[in-house]
C-alpha cells in the first residue's frame, strides 16, 4: 500500500507568549493569570507543531451604561450596567470570562467626559471585585486617552494589565506608561496589515518589549468585513510562523461590540420577521463571528452575550 505522505508544515517562527495579570507573588493582586500565544503552527493544526495556548475570552464591561444594546443582550446585564464592579463579578462568576475588558467609553467627551479620579475608582473597584486579569481600553479619543490612561495605568501599577490601544497616530504616551508601569500593550490598526506591522515597529523602537504586545486589527463582524479581517489575521500569522518578528505577537479581536451593532442583531421580530427569532439572531451572529475568527489565528476574543460565550467555549474545547 502507498505510504501516506507527511504533509506537516515546518515553520521557522513562533508567536510570542504574553502573560496578562500578576499574582501577589508577582507584584499584583490577581488570583490567576492568563497566558496567550506560544504557537508554532496554524490554528488547530497541531500536527505541524506546538498548538500554544488556547484562545481565551474577555467579557466587556463598560464604565457607562451602553446606550444601544438590544434587549436580548441587555437583559443579561440589566442589574449591573450602572455598577462596573458588579458587572465584572457577574462576568467572572456566572458567565465564564477568562479576562475582563474594561472599555472606558465614559471618558469620551460625548459620552460622559468622566474624570481620571472617577475612572481610577472604577478600575480599583473591578480589581477588588474579581481576581481575573484586566484589559483596559481607552475611548479612542486621543486627547482624553492621553490624559486618563497614564493615570489609570499608574493606579494599576504591578497588575500587568493589557492596555490599549496604541495607534500609528497616537502611540508615544500610552507606550511609555505601559513600559513604566509594567503593563502589556495593544497595538491597533484599521484593518491594515501594513500599518499593523508599522505600529509594532514604532512601539518597539521606543524600547517596548515585543513579548508584551498584543495586536488588534479593527474587527469586522459577519457580513461587515469579516473576510478582510480573517485574511489579515491569517496573513499575519503565516508571517509570524515564517519568522517575521514584528508580526509574532498574539492577536485580540472585538467580536461582541461589532456583532451586536449589526442590524441583524438589532432588528426586532416585527422589523425583520423573515430573519428568524430576534432572541437568537444576535447570539448566533456573535458566536459565528467568533468561531470564524478563531480559525484565522486569534488569541483573545472580546465578547458580550453569555450564551454566545458558552457556544464558543464548547467550540474551542472541541477543536483542541
Amino acid at each position, binding site marked *: 500500500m502507498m505510504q501516506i505522505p507527511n504533509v506537516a508544515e*515546518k515553520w521557522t517562527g513562533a508567536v510570542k507568549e504574553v502573560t496578562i495579570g500578576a499574582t501577589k507573588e508577582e507584584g499584583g493582586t490577581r488570583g490567576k493569570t492568563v497566558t496567550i500565544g506560544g504557537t508554532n503552527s496554524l490554528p488547530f493544526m497541531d500536527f505541524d507543531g506546538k498548538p500554544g495556548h488556547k484562545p481565551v475570552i474577555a467579557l466587556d464591561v463598560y464604565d457607562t451604561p451602553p446606550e444601544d444594546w438590544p434587549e436580548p443582550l441587555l437583559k443579561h446585564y440589566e442589574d449591573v450596567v450602572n455598577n462596573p464592579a458588579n458587572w465584572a463579578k457577574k462576568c467572572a462568576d456566572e458567565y465564564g470570562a477568562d479576562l475582563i475588558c474594561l472599555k472606558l467609553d465614559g471618558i469620551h467627551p460625548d459620552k460622559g467626559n468622566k474624570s481620571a479620579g472617577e475612572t481610577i475608582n472604577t478600575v480599583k473597584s473591578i480589581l477588588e471585585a474579581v481576581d481575573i486579569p484586566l484589559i483596559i481600553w481607552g475611548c479612542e479619543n486621543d486627547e482624553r486617552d492621553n490624559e486618563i490612561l497614564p493615570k489609570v495605568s499608574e493606579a494599576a501599577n504591578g497588575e500587568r494589565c493589557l492596555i490599549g490601544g496604541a495607534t500609528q497616530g497616537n502611540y508615544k504616551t500610552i507606550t511609555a506608561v505601559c513600559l513604566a508601569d509594567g503593563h502589556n500593550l495593544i497595538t491597533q490598526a484599521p484593518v491594515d*496589515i*501594513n*500599518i499593523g*506591522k*508599522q505600529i509594532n*515597529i*514604532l512601539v518597539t523602537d521606543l524600547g517596548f518589549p515585543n513579548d508584551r504586545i498584543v495586536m488588534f486589527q479593527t474587527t469586522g463582524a459577519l457580513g461587515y468585513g469579516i473576510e478582510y479581517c480573517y485574511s489579515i489575521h491569517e*496573513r*499575519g500569522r503565516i*508571517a509570524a510562523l515564517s519568522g*517575521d*518578528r*514584528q*508580526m509574532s505577537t498574539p492577536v485580540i479581536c472585538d467580536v461582541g461590540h461589532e456583532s451586536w451593532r449589526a442590524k441583524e442583531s438589532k432588528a426586532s421580530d416585527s422589523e425583520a420577521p423573515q430573519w428568524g427569532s430576534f432572541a437568537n439572531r444576535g447570539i448566533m451572529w456573535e458566536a459565528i463571528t467568533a468561531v470564524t475568527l478563531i480559525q484565522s489565528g486569534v488569541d483573545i476574543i472580546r465578547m458580550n452575550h453569555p450564551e454566545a460565550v458558552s457556544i464558543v467555549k464548547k467550540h474551542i474545547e472541541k477543536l483542541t
Partner: protein
Amino acid sequence: MITIAERINGMFLDVKRAIKEKNASVIHELAKRQTEAGATYLDINVGTAAADQHDAMRWLVETTQEAVKTPLAIDSQKLDVVKAGLEVAKNKVMINSSQGEPEALDIYIPLAQEHNAALICLTMNKDGVPQDVDTRVEIAATIVSKVLEHGMDMDKVFIDPIILPVNVDQKQPGYMLEVFSQIKLLSDPQPHITVGLSNFSQGTKEKSLLNRTMLIMAVAAGLDTALLDVLDQDLMDAGICAEMILNKQIYSDSFLKAARS
C-alpha cells in the same frame, strides 16, 4: 534572505595578514561588523596562502567565536580543512562546500548530518564547472536525490549553481536565472538556492551596481540566499526590497529597518 558574509577570507589582504600574525582584533572587528550588517552566516575561508591551513582554519573559527555567536560557514575545498573547522566550531555551522558528484555527496552529507550542519553543494563534478543549463540542473537533481537517500533535511541544503563573471561569458547570467527556476521544481520542500555573488562582478568597474542588479533578478527567479558583501548596504537593501516586492515580507513604512533588525 539568508546571507553568508564573505569578508573573513584569506584572499583579502587584511585577513591574510591577520592569519599570519595571529592578529585577533582584525577578525573580531570583521565578525562584529558583518553580524551587525545582518549576516545570517559568516563565511570562514583561510585562503591559499596560509602555511598550515588546518591550523589557520582552527584559529579563524575560534577567533571569530570569541567575538560573535553568529553561525559560521566553514569554507574550504579540502575535506580535512573543513573537518578541522568543524572540530572547534561551537556556533551553528554550515559546510561550504561539497561538489555535486555522488562520491563526494556520500562523504559530505553524512558529515553535515553528524554536525547538524547545513551544506552547500556546488553543481560541479569531475568534469569541472558546467557551462550550460541542463548539466547544472542534472547535477542539482543528483544532489537532491542523494539528500533524500541520506534522509537529510532539505531545509539545510543549499545548491550553488556557480555564477561566473559577467565579463567572461555574457550568456551565463541568463542561464543562471533559468537554472534557479528549474532547481525550484526539483523537490518539495525545495532546497535553498545560493550563489557566490561577488564572483559575478569580478574584474568589472561597477561591482556594487552589478551585484545588486543581479541579486534582484536572481531573487525574482528563486534565489533565496547568497554569499555576498553584507557591508554593502545598498546591496543588502536591494535584496530586502526584492523580497518585499515578491510578498515574502509584509510591507510597512519601516520595512527596511524591520528587515535589517
